[in-house]
Each structure stands twice: as C-alpha cells, then as structure tokens.
C-alpha cells in the first residue's frame, strides 16, 4: 500500500509540474509570436494625421488624434478606414515607420466597406503581405495593429477571429480591441500576414462612423485583404465603390423574415428593368439558394455597384432566371397620393367593411375623380379593402400616374370611381373639420392624466418633460402627437402651451415638450430621450401612428431633423419654424413616409436657406412645403399660424 501511494505521489508531482511547464512554455511561445507578428507587419503600418475638419459627425465628437493606414503597394498606396476622414479634414498627413512625413491625397473611397485609398509621393515602401483567404479560421489568433502612439513599435491588441463573412458577407469579426487607436490598421495572423483592414462597422447602419459605439467591446471588424486586393485596381484608378442595389423591397423585413416575396419593385431600378415584379419570389442569386430574406441580403451585401448577378425567381409556379447589373443609386422613390383623409371612426355593424372618406383634399386626384365626403371605399382595382389600413397599403403600393378603379358606396349605392394617382404632397388644407368628434370623453374607470403636467422619464431629472392632453381624451379615438423641441436655453414652455392649448383641444392633439439636459441645447444623443418619450406616451395613450410629428423652432433644427430622419418608424411629420434644415435629408422610403413643413416669417433671414432646404427635399421626392408668414421676422408664429401647423399634423394621415 505504502509503495503504491508513494509512486502515485511521484507521478502526480511530475504530472502537475509538467502541465505547469507546458502552460508556461505555450504562453511564452504565443507571446513571442504576437510580438514577431507585429514586428513583421510594422514596416507596412503608417500613421495618419489630419488637420482641420469638423468637430461633431453623426452625433459623435470626432477624434482629431492620429489613426493608422496600411501600405498596399510599394509606390505610395495606403489603404485606411474612412472613419479617419469623417470630419472632412483640410489636409491629410502620413508618417511612415521611419519617421518621414508625406502629404497624402484621397484617391478613392469604398463606400460599401468604409475604406479610403490614399496616395503619397513615395516609392520603395513595403506593402503588407496578405494572409491566404482560405486559411482564415474562426478561433485562430488575430492581432490588431495600429500606429497611433509616439512609439517606434505598433500598438497591439490580441484576440481571435470570432467569425468570417460578417456584416452581410463583408467583414471578418474579431474580439481584439478595435477602436480609433487602430482603425485603418491591419488585423494580422501570427505570421504577421494581414487578414484584413480594421474598420468600424454596424450591420444596421452605413455611415462613416457607424459601429464606433462598439469600440473596445470585443466586437470588431476587418475588411478581408482578399476584397481589398480585388478592388485595389479600381480604387487606384480613382473609382469610388458603392454598395450594389437592385431596387426591390420584400414583404417581410428584419432578420427573421421569411421567404423573399417581392413587395415592391422600383420602376427604373435594375430589378424592374430585368423583369422582376411585385409578387415574384426570389429563389436563387448567382445559383445560391435564398430560402429567406436574410439570405438575399447576405449575398447582395458583399456586392458592389456595377457587378452583374443572376436572379432566379418563381412566378406562377414557374422558375425564371434573369441577369442584371447592380447600381449605386436608385431613382428617388415617389410616394403616390389619392388625396383623401380617411375617417378615424372604427366601423361596426353590417356596413363595417371599407374606408370612409372624411375629407377630399382640394386639387388632388380624388377631387378630380369626383370622390366625395362620406363615400365608403370598399375595393381598389377589384380587390376588397376592409379598413383604412388596407386602403393605405393598396394605394401605397402603386406609383404616381397609375390609374386606379375604386368601388365606393355612396348614399347606399355602389358606384365606380376612376382616378389617376398623383404625387404625395405636404400641403395644408385650408379648412379641416375637427376630428375630435366626441365632446364627452369616455375614459371609463381608466386613470389617465389629462391637462398639463410635468414629469421626468424614469424619474431621471435629466429627462424632464411637460405635456398637455386635452380633457376630451378618449382611449377609443387615436390621437395625433406633437413633440415640441425647444431652442437652446429657452424651453418657451408657457408661450408654446398658451398658443397650442386651444388647437390641441380643438383637434384632440397631444403635445409633449422634453427639456434638454444641457443648458447649451440639445445633443444628438438626446434623440434617444425624444424617442423614449414618444414610447412612454404611446404606452399610456392611444396614438395614431400616422400622425406623430416632431416640431421645433430656431436652433432646435438639428435635433428635430436628426429625430425625424433617424427614427423613421416613429415620425410621420417634421415641422420646423424659423429654421432651415441643418442635417442632410435621408432617402424617401415607401415604408416610412415622412412629410416636412417649414414655416418662416417673410422677413426671417433664414428664408433663403430654407428655400434651398425645400429644393433639396423635393429633389429627393420627400413631400415638403414652405409656409411664409407675411410681415413676420424671426420669431415663433402667432395663434393663427400655430393652427396651420396643427391642421397639417391633423392631415398627416392622408392617403
């Protein structure tokens, strides 16, 4: 027994010792490999600095600190992340590992992958060695390198390859710490060969700073060297690269969407020209099966504009294959309009099906076609519509200039009305009957706050707001919601409440006024507060999703626009008083209609800039209107004009 236990002791001592030593040896070998990999790649890693440029981009303070670039060809070609140039700097300077400074020019951008190619007047540089694309394995060591410190050796972060083919097939993912200190630098393997070039990316967004919020989080991305090598020639020719677009939307959206059934095919888009139509189901792209919508996005996501693809689709149980070439820009989408306001009364009883016309807007196709107030529309082109949302959807899927046959019930008789659709406008009807029908509200036993009150979201005093809900509020009648965003340093609470209270009462609108947490005004981060507040109000009140507008005056313009443009699913209207647009407008999108109204004094110095804003919106086919107040300077308008704004909000649900 004793012999036995002693030998066990012996074995266990030597075994645990050898495990420890093996651990130690492995750790030390790996450590050595990290350093050697960095040393191998170091001669190809340049430091990039910028001079001048903007401070704030997309709500983030842009860094003015140095970033990194990778030498991809010996004669002065350096690739880097576009993030470095989001601030539109006046001058770009490259410092090579040997300390030489060079001025650099931007030759081309890859907008699909947030890369920028720079050229410096130098030769005999050492280009980075790309890693073989086939050898990149999830789980292998991945070393992120940057050159942002005043040091001869690159800065290092060590991780592994977390995934390949991320962000719709565009990027390698790593858990090494990726941040502005290494954006534009290489992600290398232990041999010092480049797996890719580090960029901030976000699967849901596409601007230069998308994904920066994820810095140092363990989720970082690199564009594979294989892609860069493939497009380098085009970039060197000065060709900007864009994501390729086909011009179709699917009935189901989001990451869990099912089969790729086409919902809309934009006229003049490559998809339309090649013969795709609404109702087709895409089954293959480039012979790769696409059983669900994300499969389609995944294949298209890695494609550039100008690249040809083949699309196989199912129509009437027959499969067809077409070829098309992706484009970078689609012709702006133009929303169609019939020209009616639908009734908000929910129909009950026998004659419940259809949508009742509450008002025919003057000068619209509906008026020309002879539609009348109280007509009940029961079918569109022979297809029955059972309620307002079906009518909205049926019309929304057509194009301006499309002919449409409506069946209506007028005074008990069925009649047929032919109309030719027009373009959606944001014009304000001169008269608009109040739709807040019931004077006696029926709130039952439900405890809801009405009148004016002040509160703070989540009891957070930095998220304080005031609100006004008309006494007539009735949960059975969906209400319009106006979010008032005050100018910097002045909540204008009593003035705005005094002007708006009568129109809110008249039109049943709910008004909320968040207060900026900073006395200096709104920061783009406050958009979250604004949308959280809308969410809070919607939780407690019945709000018509088609009549939610954000309204602001003067220097609140940026936050108003950022709210409206970023939260496309929330806001249907945006109203700016005494201010032009300060943020570039988005693309018109069929699924998130947005109307914009400007109101200015005829003597307001901002008038000229606002006219330019209107022009740019109309170019993008976003319905917009400018209302000028005679003999009025830069000031908030009087009651009569506030009523115009309220009328416009009340007509946002136009079809």
């Amino acid at each position: 027994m004793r012999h036995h236990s002693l030998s066990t002791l012996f074995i266990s001592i030597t075994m645990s010792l050898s495990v420890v030593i093996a651990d130690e040896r492995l750790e030390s070998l790996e450590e050595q490999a990290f350093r050697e990999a960095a040393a191998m790649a170091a001669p190809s890693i340049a430091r990039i600095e910028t001079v001048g440029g903007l401070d704030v981009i997309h709500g983030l303070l842009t860094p003015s600190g140095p970033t990194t670039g990778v030498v991809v060809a010996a004669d002065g070609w350096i690739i880097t992340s576009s993030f470095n140039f989001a601030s539109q700097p006046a001058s770009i300077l490259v410092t090579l590992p040997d300390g030489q400074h060079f001025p650099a020019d931007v030759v081309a951008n890859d907008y699909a992958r947030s890369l920028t190619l720079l050229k410096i007047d130098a030769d005999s540089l050492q280009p980075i060695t790309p890693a073989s694309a086939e050898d990149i394995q999830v789980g292998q060591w991945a070393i992120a390198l940057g050159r942002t410190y005043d040091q001869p050796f690159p800065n290092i972060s060590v991780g592994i390859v977390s995934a390949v083919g991320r962000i719709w097939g565009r990027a390698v993912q790593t858990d090494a710490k990726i941040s502005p200190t290494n954006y534009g630098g290489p992600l290398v393997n232990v041999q010092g060969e480049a797996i890719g070039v580090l960029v901030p990316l976000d699967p849901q967004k596409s601007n230069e700073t998308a994904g920066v919020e994820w810095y140092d989080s363990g989720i970082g991305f690199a564009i594979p060297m294989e892609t860069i090598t493939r497009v380098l020639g085009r970039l060197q020719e000065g060709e900007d690269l864009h994501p390729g677009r086909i011009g179709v939307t699917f009935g189901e959206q989001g990451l869990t969407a099912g089969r790729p059934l086409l919902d809309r095919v934009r006229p003049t888009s490559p998809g339309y020209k090649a013969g795709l139509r609404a109702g087709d189901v895409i089954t293959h792209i480039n012979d790769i099966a696409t059983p669900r919508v994300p499969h389609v996005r995944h294949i298209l996501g890695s494609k550039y504009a100008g690249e040809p693809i083949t699309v196989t689709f199912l129509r009437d149980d027959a499969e067809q294959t077409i070829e098309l070439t992706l484009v970078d820009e689609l012709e702006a989408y133009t929303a169609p309009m019939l020209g009616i306001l639908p009734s908000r009364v929910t129909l009950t009883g026998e004659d419940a099906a259809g949508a009742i016309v509450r008002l025919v807007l003057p000068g619209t196709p509906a008026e020309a076609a002879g539609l009348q107030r109280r007509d009940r529309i029961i079918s569109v082109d022979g297809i029955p519509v059972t309620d307002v949302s079906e009518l909205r959807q049926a019309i929304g899927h057509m194009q301006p200039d499309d002919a449409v046959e409506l069946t209506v019930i007028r005074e008990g008789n069925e009649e047929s009305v032919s109309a030719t659709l027009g373009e959606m406008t944001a014009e304000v009807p001169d008269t608009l009957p109040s739709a807040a029908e019931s004077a006696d509200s029926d709130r039952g036993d439900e405890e809801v706050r009405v009148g004016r009150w002040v509160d703070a979201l989540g009891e957070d005093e930095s998220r304080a707001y005031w609100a006004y809900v008309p006494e007539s509020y009735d949960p059975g009648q969906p209400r319009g919601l106006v979010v008032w965003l005050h100018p910097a340093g002045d909540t204008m609470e009593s003035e705005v409440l005094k002007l708006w209270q009568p129109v809110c009462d008249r039109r049943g609108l709910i008004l909320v006024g968040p207060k900026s947490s900073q006395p200096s005004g709104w920061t783009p981060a406050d958009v979250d507060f604004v949308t959280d507040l809308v969410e809070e109000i919607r939780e407690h009140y019945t709000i018509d999703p088609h009549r939610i507008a954000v309204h602001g005056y003067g220097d609140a313009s940026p936050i108003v626009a950022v709210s409206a443009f970023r939260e496309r699913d929330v806001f249907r209207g945006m109203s700016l008083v005494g201010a032009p647009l300060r943020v570039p407008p988005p693309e018109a999108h069929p699924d998130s209609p947005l109307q914009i109204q400007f109101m200015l004094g005829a003597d307001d110095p901002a008038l000229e800039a606002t006219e330019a804003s209107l022009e740019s919106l109309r170019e993008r086919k976003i319905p917009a209107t400018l209302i000028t107040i005679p003999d009025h300077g830069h000031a908030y308008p009087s009651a009569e004009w506030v009523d115009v704004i309220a009328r416009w909000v009340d007509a946002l649900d136009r079809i």
Partner: protein
Amino acid sequence: MISRNGQLLRISAVLVCLLLCTAPVAHAQSSRQTIETVLPRVVKIFGAGGVKNLESYGSGFLVSAEGHLVTVWSHVLDADRVTVVLDDGRRFDAELLGAEPSLELAVLKIDAQDLPFFDLDQISDAGPGTRVLAFSNVFEVAVGDEPVSVVHGVIAATDELSARSGRYDVSYTGPVYVVDAVTNNSGAAGGVLTTRDGQLLGMIGRQLQNSQSNTWLNYAMPLSELDTTIRQIQSGDFSRNRDSESTEFDDNFDSIDFGIVLVPDVVERTPAYVDAVLDGSQAMAEGLQPDDLIVFANNRLVHSCKAFEEELGQLQPSDDLTVVVRRGGVLLTISLTAPRTLPQR
C-alpha cells in the same frame, strides 16, 4: 521495501529539482501560478463615495508583511473610515500614511502581521505585446472573502500621459502601459498589472478619457515611476518637495513674433493656414509664404491655429522652432528661432 521507497523518493526529488531548474525560476510561472500568487496580495478598499456616479470602493496592493499598502489617491480615501478587506475576508481599518497627488499615489497602513506582499525590489518593465494580467476589485464584484477579479490582455503600447498634449485631464504626467483589455473601470484604480509570469509592472490608474480619440484609456502607471515615493512614505521620510508643476499653458510667443499672420481662427479646428508673412520678418527670410499650411511644429502635429499658438506659447527665448508646411502637394521644412527676449505685452 522501505529502502526502495526511499530510493523512489530520492529519484522523484531529483526529477522535481531537474524540472524546476530547466526554466529560470523567477520566470517559469504560468498564468495560473501567477494568479495564485498575486490574488492574496491585492485588497479591496471601501471608503467615501456612492453619490453622483462616484464609486465608494477601490483596489490596492500590499507592499509589506506589516500591512503597508498602495492605492490611488482618490475621493474614496476622503472618508472618516477607510476599510481594507483582504482576499480571505479579514477586515481592517486603514490609516493614510501619505499621498502624492501629482503621482495619483497614496500609501495606507493596516494593523496586521505576516501578510503576503509584493517586493518593490522585484518590479519589472515590459514592452508592447507582453501578456499581462490585471487584478482589481472592478465594479465591486468581489465582496467579503472573495479575491479580486483577474483580466488578461497584452500591453498595447507604452505612451506618455502628458497634460501638455491636452489629451488627458490628469495630474500624473509620465509613461504608462496602455493595455488592450478593459482594465480601468469603476473601482479598478489601485489594482496591479503583472506579466503573465508574475512580475509586477504597474498600478492601474483611475478612469481617463482620451480627449483626442474620445475613447476610454486602459492603462497602468509603471511602478518604477512610483516606487521611490512609496518607500519614502513607508519609511516616514517623505515630504512633498516637488513643485506643483503648472499645467497651465504658457503664452510666451505668438505667431506674430515670427512674422506669421495666420488666417482668422473662426472654428474649433481652423487649419493653420498662413494668411500673410510680415515684410522683413524671420519667416519671410526663411521663405514662408501665404497659403502655406503649417502641419508640424517641432515635430508635433498642428491640427489647428490654436494648436500652433499653444506650441509657440511653450517656447523659451532663442528656442529652435522647426515648422513643416504643406505647399501645393509637397511638405517643406522651415527652421526658425524664437526671439531672444520675451515680447512685451
């Protein structure tokens, strides 16, 4: 049988010795062994705070068997009672022996004996790529008799924390280890950074944001910068003899003192374009021209007019000033010298 067993024991002893000696003892330590050794030497500190996002907890590490311990100089110590909790759960009230705010350093003492500790004669230095472990009571995750948390990473870079560069709002100016792991969160300050084989490198500093890249910095202050002061406080012969260095920007010279007129500084980052060069000035003699863009001054990036004026403000009389300008597509170097006397203002 017994003799055979004795023989076996002897063989195993020899083998163990051999195995141990094949690698240098001080370095032949795996991360696992390092963690075992380091954890009992790092403590949790509880003191003032708990309001307005200021945490009331921190970390520290033992430097003597008699209970001397080092931490950062912070609001946590500004309490009537500062409590130190060891890894085994033993609690002590701590006495503040001394502090050096310019090093963000404080030394505490608890009344204990025979504690495991870090030997300040055994501190080490390391460079980028070195695997490191960081030990701290980050986010107060460790309570009672639990040891502090360990995270791993590599040294990303060594860098100077310099108030002059305007990057950091911090009184410590000197080299730091920048780490690629998220080491500096609430409560981590005062923890230690070691190599994976257990060599003591630095003390984790308080949370800092890099004002140039707007990112949070993960870093530790090398103990080689702190150890002399720690020893002085420990032995009681410490006096704060350092002049409190002014971090205010000097305003010695302006661009006009060199004959340079910059474009009007209208926005936060107006690029430093030369608007005019004064006749007969040094700048004119050296060939500076209107529309030149000043991009470096004494090898420091000039990202705006303001940055250039700050750089000139730092110059002493007769100092050299080398500026690099971008003219057209090329960079040109122009050497200037500051005037021999400070201008009268």
